């Protein structure tokens, strides 16, 4: 079975690791009461990771538009193909929507992102506490929705690998092609 390009595989796993990291940091940092240096550090790391995901998502989308992914197994029923495509499209939407919502939230809260503490990223929303209050739950629920979609995505991949044994997961794994 044909595999994804090396570029697609690298981008997929890099984004996956960064998303899991940013998501975990997000849960941990918002759970720390009051303020502490560790909390502020986690907030910065969370934002830098999110911005990195957004940048990689742009690269990934460009790559995806120029490179067709390998075909799905022939034996796959039509509804599963439809579900797979739908889920993949949604995940593409979320890898943009989640970091963008967080970015807008921090801008509205009046705290610009200084990438790796080195340079300030564009500020296109002025400080606006009311807007920040609106964006906060939006960022949270986009994250939770994405987590649910990622869970489905992982379960489907594991089903293909262990139940169907059709090589679908192997297309996205590093290693030799079969």
């Amino acid at each position, binding site marked *: 079975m044909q595999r994804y390009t090396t570029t697609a595989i690298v981008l997929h796993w890099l984004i996956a690791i960064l998303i899991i990291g940013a998501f975990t940091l997000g849960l941990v940092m918002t759970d720390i*009461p*009051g*303020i*502490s*240096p560790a909390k*502020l*550090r986690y907030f*910065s790391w969370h934002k830098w990771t999110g911005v990195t995901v957004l940048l990689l998502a742009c690269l990934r989308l460009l790559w995806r538009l120029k490179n067709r992914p390998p075909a799905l197994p022939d034996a796959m029923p039509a509804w599963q193909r439809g579900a797979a495509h739908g889920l993949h499209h949604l995940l593409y939407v979320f890898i943009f929507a989640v970091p963008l919502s967080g970015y807008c939230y921090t801008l509205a*809260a*009046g*705290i*610009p*992102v*200084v990438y790796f*503490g*080195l340079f*300030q990223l564009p500020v296109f929303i002025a*400080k606006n*506490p009311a807007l*920040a209050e609106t964006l906060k739950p939006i960022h949270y629920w986009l994250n939770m929705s994405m987590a649910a979609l990622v869970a489905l995505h992982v379960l489907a991949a594991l089903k293909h690998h262990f139940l169907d044994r059709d090589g679908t997961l192997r297309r996205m794994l590093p290693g030799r092609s079969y």
Partner: protein
Amino acid sequence: MKLTRSSIAALLAATTLLANAVPLKTDAAHSSVTATFKQMNVPVDASFKRFNAQIDYDAGHPEKATARVDIDTASFDMGEAEYNKEVAKKDWFNSPQFPKASFVSTAIRPGGAGKLNVSGKLTIKGRTQDVSFPLSVKPEGGKQVFEGQLPIKRLAFNIGEGEWKDTSMVADEVVIKFRVAASQ
């Protein structure tokens, strides 16, 4: 009218009296005191919601001007209630023990058109430092608007104790910016 030495003296005395007797009325809605600090290199603006500025100023006698600003440290607003509560605590402003920060001018000298050079004593968290800074003054809509900024070192005032002494987390330099609109 022939000006005699004594009438000039009387006139001077009267203008001096007048100059000293014009405390301006501060327009709180158009006045602000903010502090800008850097947290992991991120510039953050926060403002003091409650303060009281008393300025005696006569454009004809700027050298006679005096200024006093009292700031309610517990009114520091970073935009999030949880953080506001934190900075009133002992490590930061210690507002229960030091509810007020104050600036009292000791000398105000004219420094060219629309400019004043202000020296005075700044007290925060029980520590006093001599500071001086340029102040601009311009008439705006029937009011005098005083604007200026003053960079300070937060650690000189013990702002941020314990683990917060780390200036790589919160920079030592904090810029206090203020704008006071006042009318006669």
